[in-house]
């Protein structure tokens, strides 16, 4: 089992450009989460998919961020246009659904985004 995979591992772009991050969850995991760690700050929740539906997108910072999970498998997170403050490490995690219990989330290695 490869675990959660993320692509790319690093991305360096200029302010105003567009970047798309991809996450492949563990096979069979209905839950998929995006988190972000900005330098010097805590890891912050962005959004949560259950299959292809957005369960909670309360952490999305603004409308420059668009997340999709077509077909309920992999997910993409697009930032358009990128700003300097978007720099950070973007983590994806996935979990199985277990009723009435907080599920263990398995994290990917992260994508380090640098906006110049």
């Amino acid at each position, binding site marked *: 089992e490869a*675990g*959660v995979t993320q692509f790319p591992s690093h991305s360096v772009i200029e302010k105003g450009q567009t970047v798309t991050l991809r996450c492949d969850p563990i096979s069979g995991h209905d*839950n998929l*989460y995006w*988190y972000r760690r900005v330098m010097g*700050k*805590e*890891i*912050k*929740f962005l959004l*949560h998919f259950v299959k292809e539906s957005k*369960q*909670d997108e309360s*952490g999305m910072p603004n409308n420059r961020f668009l997340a999709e999970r077509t077909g309920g498998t992999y997910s993409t997170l697009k930032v358009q246009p990128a700003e300097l403050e978007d720099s950070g490490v973007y*983590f994806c995690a996935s*979990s199985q659904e277990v009723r*009435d*219990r*907080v*599920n*263990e*989330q*398995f*994290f*990917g*290695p*992260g994508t380090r985004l640098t906006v110049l």
Partner: protein
Amino acid sequence: AQRVTQPEKLLSVFKGAPVELKCNYSYSGSPELFWYVQYSRQRLQLLLRHISRESIKGFTADLNKGETSFHLKKPFAQEEDSAMYYCALSGKRRYNTDKLIFGTGTRLQVFP
């Protein structure tokens, strides 16, 4: 407001010394508490969760609802314990979402 506080950015100890990584939380209701660890060049992984009441790699953590704390402890630190440790909480039952709320993390350095 839901919040996790880890007051120490860095904790340095010698091998064999006891370790306590502090974590306090703010939450209205009954959260589930976790410790996640990230070793050098590895991904973030679950170390332990309070409902399991287990010891992992010699680490334990007790949920103290009165003090709203979930400190991580190990009686004798090992060099391989050096890593970044994150305390996190989730409140699925109340909000029907199990997003994790993380603290800022504590880097543990264990010297030989």
